[in-house]
């Protein structure tokens, strides 16, 4: 009988942490915040992806304006980028593999931050095209600090979900990722088992 043995070994370890900090076993407030963070990040990806997909020419010009990629790569990157964003948006929205998708989101956002920072450092005068549009602008009209601050905010959302991917209303929750029961968390702990107290 291997399975029960395994569960006996792991079970107390899983519940030890919330008990130790004296919080309810479920941290419903944290899960609720996680949901808001997830929806926020999903909105960022879906909106920016839609705006980019709607104007592929502008998106290409925006990618070229960063002067980071060789011409042969700029086309494929500009073509794929809007749909990478939309795909991440859908996955974050439904909370599928939240931690992995949040890590991917971090990587994409870090690439954006790097692009903007190098454009600023090299003295290019461009608009990041983060939400569609973009390309070269008049030198007085760059907004690098604001663009970087905004992306840092988005990065914070993604980092939250890397550190604490659990949230309400997610496919992960429904599948029972990181939970003690395979049932989804409906945000109501009253009818769920209270382990380790007996």
């Amino acid at each position, binding site marked *: 009988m291997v399975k029960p043995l395994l*569960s006996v070994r792991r079970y107390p370890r899983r519940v030890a942490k919330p008990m130790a900090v004296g919080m309810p076993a479920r941290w419903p407030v944290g899960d609720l915040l996680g949901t808001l963070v997830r929806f926020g990040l999903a909105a960022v990806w879906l909106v920016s992806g839609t705006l980019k997909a709607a104007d592929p020419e502008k998106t290409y010009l925006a990618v070229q304006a960063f002067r980071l990629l060789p011409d042969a790569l700029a086309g494929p990157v500009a073509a794929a980028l809007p749909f990478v964003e939309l795909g991440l948006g859908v996955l974050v929205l439904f909370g599928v593999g939240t931690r992995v998708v949040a890590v991917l989101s971090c990587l994409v956002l870090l690439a954006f931050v790097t692009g903007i920072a190098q454009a600023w450092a090299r003295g290019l005068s461009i608009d990041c095209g983060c939400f569609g549009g973009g390309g070269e602008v008049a030198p007085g009209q760059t907004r690098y600090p604001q663009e970087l601050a905004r992306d840092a905010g988005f990065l914070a959302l993604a980092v939250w979900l890397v550190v604490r991917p659990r949230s309400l209303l997610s496919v992960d929750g429904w599948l*029972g990722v990181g939970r003690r029961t395979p049932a989804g968390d409906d945000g109501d702990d009253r009818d769920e088992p209270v382990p380790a107290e007996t």
Partner: protein
Amino acid sequence: MGGAERTARKRKQTTQAARAVAAARGGNDRRNVIIGVVIVVVMAVAVIGGVLYTRNNSTSGGAGDIPVTTAHAQYPTKVEDDGTVVAGNDAAKVTVDVYEDFLCPACGSFEKIYGEQVEKAVADGKIKVRYHILNLLDRYSNPAGYSLEAANAAIAAASTGKFPDFHASLFANQPKEGGKGYTQDQLVKLGQAVGISGGDFEAAVRGGKYNEQIKKQLDAASNNPALQRESAQGKSFGTPTITVNGTMIDLQDGDWLKKAIEQSGQG
């Protein structure tokens, strides 16, 4: 509900939970695989589907023939060694130099607003125009390089005498900046459509016959102080830039050509 009853219920729940956990733990790997597969499938469908959708719906450049737009007047051209297309009578009293790029939207506007006046004045022998066709926006077609290919094809068309319609057609049906641009095949077909016969034109288009001259012209124009415009970032060269007898003119002045012709005493 009595205390003993509650404890019993709780215990029952706990054992149920333990069983459920055992089941879930047992399925952990499988569940992770499923989630991983979902992530990969969603991303692949989004990216591949999206790119194909965009490609099919891209109107700019198009796959068909470039429509022929006839110039407002026909005029003779010759090509100088440095790739400059000289339009009109050499003896004309006014010399207009036009620096343009077939991808540049502002050049498209220039041709829309002033093209007719310029073409007619050239045909009437009042002015001659030296077209410096540049590849300033090479990076801004997708794939890159339309500016150079179009410039090369137009100069090749000029060497066959069919420049006016070829030039007018490319500007009247200008691809979007950031768009696909036209292919060599489309440029060759446009040449045939405006009446160029023989294989020399096609060879010139495909072989990039004038590419080196075009690049040198761009270098020369970019570094020519007389062609720099004042802007917030200092002086810089852009297209379209127009000079009359060597002096840069302000395109905000709608009568620039009329005035130039009047000043030369041709009314």
